[in-house]
């Protein structure tokens, strides 16, 4: 695949811009320079969107903001990306568009994206693919699973490196790599011969027996077809079981890792719970102390505050002598009666204003109901008790206040400790999280057990069905040989089956050879970039492991190593694909592959100077076509290291926040 041009219409800040890429064999680098925010990443993302209908943008609305604002209600605008490329000996035009419409509520709604693929055959005829076939065609050109490695973002290169080392890539990824490395012709031949499809070569022979010569042929053919359907169903279920077991195992490993990570968290969580218990106890104790203090205060404080008044009163009273002033058993009303009668008990006239009158009248002050002597005596007695109690109240109050202050300090300290633990825990209840993780792990175990049992049963069924089918095939073959027409079909089918079996073997052998070769190539490139005693190995799923020479086991990679790993992986695939394409070696005669471009957004930002030089030298040598989106500050670096290889240069000019043009 070589990219010829890309055109963006109303795609974010690009209203109508096209970039032509260098397809020159020698000067195979295209550089697109722009300041930050001019849309380099947008342009790089346009490739993804055109091919797969996806972008990494948070704002999923792709319509240019100015165009969207200018739309009137019920008006439509189209976002379109047109990618022209060459794949094999075919020129493709891949178009993806999306219609946006403004409503009367002034909101924009968008339809689903529409993908169109057209190609020009060698005879010049233009062929438009049916919509249903477009996605499959794009997959043939560049499988989605691999696309991010060919259109990669330098700022996310480390994440990609972790992915290729993760061991969690899908089987589609491995298939995509195999296809890219030259096995596509064999894969296509196997698919066309496929005995499982009645549209394949072997399957169609199965359908073409003439049953007129012997009715058993028809019966056997039907039975064989039925067995095949059952075998296919079981096989398909077995594949699903494999995937499900792999997923459950991976999930279980993930859960174990998480549980391990939570171990320290659990300890902290237990500590936190203890502290919360202490805090609650301290709060309860404080509440009790406060309540006691208030109760004491309410009952004792009036006496406390009355103390000075009482003291004053006692002082005044101590100066007066009330003893003997009152007359026992006599009431003030008696005096009032005597005064009103005008005669004392002794017979003395009590004329108002006279001396006897006034003397008798004075007695009222000392007689009940307020017998001053008794009242003063009681008052003095009560006051002495109150004044004496007051000493204890004050001491108690001071002690209670000290206790409360101590409890406040304790509570604050506990709150600080809890906060410190919470900040380490990052929120949430670890115990319940760990419990949930354990429960999920148990579910995974159960799923693996159930699936393994199911697999065992299915394999037994599969074996029995295959035996039955083989028996019927042999019986039908014997019958077929008695009839010329059927005999021919039997012979053709035997040829097809033999070719199919051989191609399966060749595919498996070639895949192993290619994988080993890829491993060698990747190591060669890796060592040229990252000078050190590290090597890479590739497993059956094309996962990469990094290990230090003479050390048994995987190692954690640094940023520089990670960058080198992903770079070696991508360029290794491209180099091998290219080698297969130009090879005339007989061993590789069944391998056919394509050159692939490298489209990189900010590739140099993560490399140091020495690696920039190495990478810049390696890129145009290894890849057939290199397209680099680069910020202006890295422009000189790129020119310095790539200058002679640059076939096309473009520069973005930002007109405003919503529009960028190509200079």
């Amino acid at each position, binding site marked *: 695949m070589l990219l010829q041009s890309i055109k963006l219409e109303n795609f974010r800040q690009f209203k109508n811009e096209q970039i032509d890429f260098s397809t020159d064999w020698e000067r195979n680098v295209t550089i697109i320079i722009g300041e930050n925010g001019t849309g380099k990443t947008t342009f790089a993302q346009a490739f993804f969107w055109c091919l797969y209908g996806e972008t990494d943008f948070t704002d999923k609305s792709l319509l240019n903001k100015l165009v969207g604002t200018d739309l009137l209600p019920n008006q439509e605008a189209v976002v379109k990306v047109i990618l022209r490329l060459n794949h*094999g*000996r*075919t020129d493709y035009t891949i178009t993806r568009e999306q219609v946006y419409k403004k409503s009367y509520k002034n909101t924009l709604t968008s339809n689903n994206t529409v993908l169109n693929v057209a*190609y020009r*055959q*060698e005879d010049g005829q233009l*062929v438009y693919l049916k919509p249903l076939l477009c996605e499959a065609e794009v997959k*043939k050109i560049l499988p989605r699973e691999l696309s991010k490695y060919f259109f990669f973002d330098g700022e996310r290169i480390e994440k990609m490196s972790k992915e290729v080392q993760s061991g969690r890539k899908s089987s589609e990824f491995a298939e995509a790599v195999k296809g890219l490395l030259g096995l*596509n*012709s*064999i894969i*296509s*031949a196997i698919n*066309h*011969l496929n005995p499982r499809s009645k*549209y*394949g*070569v072997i399957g*169609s*022979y199965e359908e073409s027996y003439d049953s007129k010569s012997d009715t058993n042929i028809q019966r056997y053919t039907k039975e064989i077809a039925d067995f095949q359907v059952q075998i296919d169903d079981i096989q398909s279920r077995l594949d699903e079981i494999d995937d499900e077991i792999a997923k459950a195992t991976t999930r279980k490993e993930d859960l174990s890792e998480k549980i391990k990570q939570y171990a320290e968290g659990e300890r902290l969580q237990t500590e936190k719970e203890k502290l919360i218990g202490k805090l609650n106890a301290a709060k309860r104790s404080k509440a009790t102390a406060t309540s006691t203090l208030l109760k004491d205060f309410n009952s004792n404080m009036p006496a406390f505050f009355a103390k000075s008044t009482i003291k004053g009163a006692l002082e005044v009273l101590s100066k007066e002598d009330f003893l003997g002033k009152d007359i026992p058993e006599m009431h003030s009303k008696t005096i009032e009666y005597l005064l009103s009668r005008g005669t004392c008990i002794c017979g003395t006239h009590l004329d108002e204003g006279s001396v006897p009158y006034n003397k008798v009248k004075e007695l009222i002050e000392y007689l009940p109901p307020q017998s001053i002597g008794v009242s003063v005596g009681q008052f003095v007695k009560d006051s002495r008790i109150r004044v004496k109690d007051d000493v204890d109240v004050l001491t108690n109050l001071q002690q209670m206040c000290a206790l409360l202050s101590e409890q406040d300090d304790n509570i604050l300290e506990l709150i600080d400790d809890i906060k410190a633990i919470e900040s380490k825990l990052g929120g949430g209840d670890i115990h319940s999280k760990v419990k949930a993780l354990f429960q999920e792990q148990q579910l995974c175990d159960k799923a693996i057990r159930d699936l393994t049992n199911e697999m065992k049963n299915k394999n037994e069924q599969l074996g029995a069905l295959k035996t039955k089918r083989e028996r019927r*095939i*042999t019986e039908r*073959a*014997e019958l077929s*040989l008695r009839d010329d027409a059927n005999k*021919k079909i*039997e*012979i*053709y*089918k*035997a*040829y*097809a*089956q*033999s*070719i199919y079996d*051989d*191609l399966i073997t*060749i595919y498996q052998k070639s895949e192993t050879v290619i994988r080993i070769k890829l491993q060698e190539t990747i190591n060669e490139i890796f060592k040229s970039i990252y000078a050190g005693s590290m090597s890479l190995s590739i497993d059956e799923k094309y996962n990469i492991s990094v290990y230090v020479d003479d050390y048994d086991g995987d190692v954690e990679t640094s940023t520089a190593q990670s960058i080198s790993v992903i770079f070696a992986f991508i360029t290794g695939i491209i180099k091998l694909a290219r080698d297969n394409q130009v090879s005339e070696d007989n061993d590789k*005669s*069944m391998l*056919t592959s394509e050159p692939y471009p490298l489209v990189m957004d900010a590739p140099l930002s993560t490399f140091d100077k020495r690696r920039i030089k190495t990478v810049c030298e390696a890129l145009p040598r290894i890849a057939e076509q290199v397209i680099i989106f680069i910020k202006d500050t890295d422009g000189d670096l790129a020119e310095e290291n790539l200058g002679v290889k640059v076939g096309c240069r473009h520069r973005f000019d930002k007109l405003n926040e919503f529009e960028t043009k190509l200079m």
Partner: protein
Amino acid sequence: MITINGIEVDEKSIERLKQRIVLLESRNINTKQLSDQQMVKKIKDMIEEEAKCYFNQ
């Protein structure tokens, strides 16, 4: 000579057919001239032609 389901097939013919079919696939991947069904028919024609040649000998 090998035997498949009781039928004898010529190994040299099988070898030739494998090469021809993979080359045909390779060419078609590049040119996209034939659809899947046309490819199936073409492969069947190649097999039948080769088998007939062998038996005519």
